[in-house]
């Protein structure tokens, strides 16, 4: 049974539409991630669910109840904010218990829940400190504790990790994921970081310009993005795109662009392939690179030819940036022997994993 429904939800600030006709069901116990760039409307959607932002049109339901016009305190949701929103003049204990005291929860029950959250988040030694005396990660855990003690129907996270340094971010990401799986509380998590989205989400909603681009499991978004935006957004390093044309020579379907010649798998190509311009999408890890002995061939018979402009040696995987015709592309390879800057390279594409986009839609 889904526990959160958005039905035709629209949000306008004056004449600007921030979220348009947003429809989504969040299943009970699920961790759903809303991901998108700035201005995509993801935070606005979360704030509408929290009750911090009014809904212009449409309905939001939590656990079957219409909460569209309810104030935050009557919604049974708890939120973790980007800058934590801890009350600086109160101790950790007071921060954790305030929401319960305002809801007139019995004192013994408050103590039980604070102790439970403190134990789970390793906050016991910090209970009598003020937020200023805590590190970023500790403050983050207090903010999570404050949401947990409320035992709400839904957890909301608004970019909770973006104020932490990289190492801590990875650690807290694991903690949040683990915590959510243990508590099995329905969670909506907003981030601009697609790595966070991919690693945390049961499902991911990719947003752009206030509209849903795609909803799906992380691996589905990665393998079968519906459009060029999702394809470019999901995955690091991002997918390469080459604009070109489809031709039917050599008895098969061939994608051609300057410096690129790629025979496509006929079965995976639609019968009614438009003969206009298309875009080929290929992920960096779906390319194999060989150092070429010859000069650049501007019309290779298969794959790509390019000249290396930068090699990033990351240890395991290395990133090779190269120019093929007018396009700057990136291959992620695990070769023992890497080309040098200025070398000519032959690049073979994994045709199984190649994507074609026509007018931004994947075909």
């Amino acid at each position, binding site marked *: 049974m889904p526990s959160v429904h958005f039905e035709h939800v629209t949000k306008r600030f004056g004449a600007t539409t921030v979220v348009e006709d947003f429809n989504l069901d969040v299943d009970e116990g699920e961790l759903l991630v809303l991901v998108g760039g700035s201005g995509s409307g993801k935070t606005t959607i979360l*704030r509408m669910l*929290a*009750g*911090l932002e009014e809904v212009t049109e449409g309905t939001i339901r939590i656990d079957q109840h219409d909460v569209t016009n309810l*104030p*935050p*305190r009557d919604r049974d*949701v*708890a*939120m973790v*904010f*980007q*800058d*934590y*929103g*801890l*009350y*600086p*003049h109160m101790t950790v204990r007071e921060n954790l218990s*305030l*929401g319960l005291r*305002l*809801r007139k929860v019995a004192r013994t029950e408050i103590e039980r829940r604070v102790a439970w959250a403190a134990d789970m988040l390793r906050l016991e030694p910090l209970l009598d400190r003020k937020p200023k005396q805590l590190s970023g990660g500790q403050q983050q855990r207090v903010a999570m504790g*404050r949401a947990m003690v409320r035992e709400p129907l839904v957890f909301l996270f608004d970019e909770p990790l973006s104020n932490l340094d990289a190492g801590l971010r990875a650690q807290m990401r694991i903690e949040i994921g683990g915590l959510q799986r243990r508590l099995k509380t329905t969670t909506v998590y907003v981030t601009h970081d697609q790595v966070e989205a991919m690693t945390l989400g049961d499902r991911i909603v990719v947003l752009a310009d206030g509209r849903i681009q795609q909803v799906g499991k992380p691996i589905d978004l990665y393998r079968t993005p519906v459009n060029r935006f999702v394809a470019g957004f999901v995955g690091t390093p991002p997918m390469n795109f080459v604009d070109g044309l489809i031709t039917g020579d050599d008895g098969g379907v061939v994608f051609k662009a300057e410096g690129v010649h790629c025979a496509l798998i006929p079965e995976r190509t639609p019968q009614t392939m438009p003969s206009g311009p298309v875009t080929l999408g290929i992920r960096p890890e779906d390319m194999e690179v060989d150092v070429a002995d010859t000069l650049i061939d501007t019309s290779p018979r298969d794959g790509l030819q390019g000249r290396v402009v930068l090699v990033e040696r990351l240890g395991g995987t290395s990133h090779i940036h190269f120019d093929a015709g007018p396009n700057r592309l990136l291959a992620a390879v695990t070769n023992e022997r890497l080309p040098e800057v200025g070398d000519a390279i032959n690049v073979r594409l994994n045709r199984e994993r190649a994507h074609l986009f026509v007018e931004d839609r994947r075909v």
Partner: protein
Amino acid sequence: MKTLRRIALYGALTIAALTFIYPFLWMASATFKPLAEVGTIALFPEHATFDNYRTMWARAPFGRALLNSMFVAGTITLSVLVFGSITAYAMARLRFRGRPVLNAATMGVLLIPGQLTLIPLYTLIVQLGLVDTYAALILPYLFNATAILMMRQFFMQIPQSLIDSARMDGMGEMRILFTIFWPLSRPVLSIVAIFTFMGSWNEVLWPLLVVREQHLMTLPQLLTVFSLGGGAGSIGVSLASAMVLVVPVVIAYAFLQRNFIESMAGSGVKG
């Protein structure tokens, strides 16, 4: 060399401080001098006496005036803080129709000098039948545009996520103001408090206009009437009554000075 510079520096500062503090100390000491000694510049009276205070207390109801002043200034200060912060909170943090107009109007009030509204305000008080009441002393000062703008400015710097958290925790706007904003706004609240209190405490003109009954008079008003009316009789008694006026403000300042200096020096800097 370093010690020498230090000594020179402290010497200069001491002289500067003395030029401010000496007149005050002289006044304080003069109140304890018999009439023959008042003319000297000596800081310590040769024959200390409480006569000036006794005379003052006997000739006019200064005790009552002191209580009146405390009541009036206290009520006004409390009102400016409570109603002012409510207004400032709304102006700083709530979205509502007409907010820009309210902002402009509040700013506009600052441009109107008090002397200009004195007569209309007096006419209003007369027509309301409030002459010779505490209400006449208090009503016109219940709200203060400067205080509202100062608090508004401070409130605008408090992070939105605190308001959001508080709303999620189940607080209403009033509760957010008094349990979250007030504790975080101590510097601005104390500077507003001390300015309002001092302003109200030292006000002479308005009480002179609306209060004629001696038992309703505030301290500076009674003092003015007393001294100018020749009631004091001697400079020692005049100074003694001025001392009574000034001491409560000095005490209030001493209590609030840490916050006061903090907000003067470090406004806008978080630490």
